């Protein structure tokens, strides 16, 4: 029992230490961005726009398709199963809870981890192996401005926008497709839905997306920088980035959900 407690204590200490390192990277990069001279900040901002293009705009078709499929399933199940148990009045609330509060930010985060998170850690790992980071340094280029801050801000902005886009497609697009087999009218569906959405639901959804975006960018950048010299370390770092981001996103999601229900 003592050994188990010691083991768990060490794991917890490691996790806390890791989170402190991530927070330091986050704060030092963002402060470097906001305190840097104008030309450097402008340059960093342009990289951020490219990150939004890659993580956000180019992911729209994939996220839209998955949101649509998921929306159809959730809407059909809710509109057909709940009334059988006398739960018609909860349909709207269930949809909002499941899609807006939980699935929207979470599914968006999963897709961004798989698509952009892995790309970020691989890119940085390869840059280290090919001495590009050293080249940036001797050109006087701050890697926090060139690599870290634009990715944190770009990925976070993209996850927030994609999460809202996911919610919209899942709820409205999902209903349009589900309408093929349901008799519920659009006006009645919209009334149920909009009467169930509260400001808190939107805030929680956006807060989760904000947090997940930051976590994805931070962990993937951090793991990318953990590569030392060998190209064989790059896939290992990418796998670590993916697993750790998934873990932290799940953890953050559970804590936030718990927080708002307490």
């Amino acid at each position, binding site marked *: 029992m003592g050994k188990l407690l010691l083991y768990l204590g060490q794991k917890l200490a490691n996790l806390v230490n890791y989170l402190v390192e991530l927070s330091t990277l986050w704060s030092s990069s963002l402060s470097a961005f906001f305190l840097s*001279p*104008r*030309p*450097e900040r*402008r*340059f960093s901002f342009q990289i951020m726009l490219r990150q939004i293009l890659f993580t956000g705009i180019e992911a729209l078709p994939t996220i839209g398709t998955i949101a649509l499929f998921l929306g159809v399933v959730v809407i059909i199940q809710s509109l057909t199963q709940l009334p059988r148990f006398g739960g018609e009045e909860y349909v709207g609330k269930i949809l909002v809870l499941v899609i807006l509060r939980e699935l929207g930010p979470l599914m968006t985060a999963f897709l961004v981890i798989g698509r952009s998170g892995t790309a970020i850690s691989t*890119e940085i790992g*390869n*840059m280290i192996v*090919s*001495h*590009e980071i*050293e*080249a*940036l*340094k*001797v*050109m*006087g*280029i*701050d890697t926090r401005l*060139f690599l870290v801050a634009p990715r944190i801000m770009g990925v976070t902005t993209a996850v927030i926008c994609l999460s809202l886009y996911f919610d919209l497609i899942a709820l409205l697009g999902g209903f349009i497709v589900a309408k093929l087999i349901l008799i519920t009218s659009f006006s009645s569906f919209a009334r149920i839905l909009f009467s169930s959405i509260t400001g808190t639901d939107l805030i929680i959804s956006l807060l989760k997306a904000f947090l997940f975006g930051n976590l994805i960018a931070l962990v993937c950048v951090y793991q990318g920088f953990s590569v030392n010299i060998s190209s064989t370390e790059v896939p290992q770092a990418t796998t670590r980035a993916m697993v750790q981001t998934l873990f932290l996103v799940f953890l953050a999601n559970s804590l936030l959900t718990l927080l708002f229900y307490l």
Partner: protein
Amino acid sequence: MDPNIQIQNLSFGYPGKKIFDSLTFAAEKGRSLAILGASGSGKTTLLKLAAGIIFPASGRVLINGIDLVQAARSQTQAVYRDLGFLFQDTALIANMNISDNLALPLRYHGVGSPDEIARRVQDSLSRFGLENYAESLPAQISVGLKKRAALARALINHPRLLFLDDPLAEADLHFQEMIIQIARAQKAQGTLSLTTTSNFADAARLADHIILIHQGKIIKTGSPAEVETAALQALQEGQI
């Protein structure tokens, strides 16, 4: 301030392996210095220490009087704006085309208007025969062209400090001639250059002063003729 480098009692190593022990040397404006040593003797590591890419375990590296380990960011930025570094494996940014690679330090530091930057990049592309590869990614061009692009990037800021990591290794004759001409022209302009090589003839072609290193220590410093004599003697005596 005129460009200068001072390496003072520099020691460096990796866990369980000492690379350098109390190295000291200095160079100033107009000096072309070659670090000569066998493969694996730590020449590239020494060049990276001198450029502040990696930091020593003890001792100091001063560039233009500034200790890069302790200096404020604005001071290190000023040093790096004045420094060109040619990496042995080019280290071009893989996801940027050649033109953007050249423009990178200028754009980042906001050196000139966009038109001015474009003109400087175009001039540099022409000077190094890269006009037809401006839009190519580094992976799409040959090693020789990549070396030329890396050299063009190292020189685009008109640096007064030039670091060249084994520039003649695996280079074609045209590039070798180009490097030697550039090294001479830079010296004439007062640029301080630091080159690494494992070939004595290359060191003699590129530098007026050679530092011979072996097993982490300086064996001899001096003119190519002086170092050649000392190296031959050390070889005969089995010291190196």
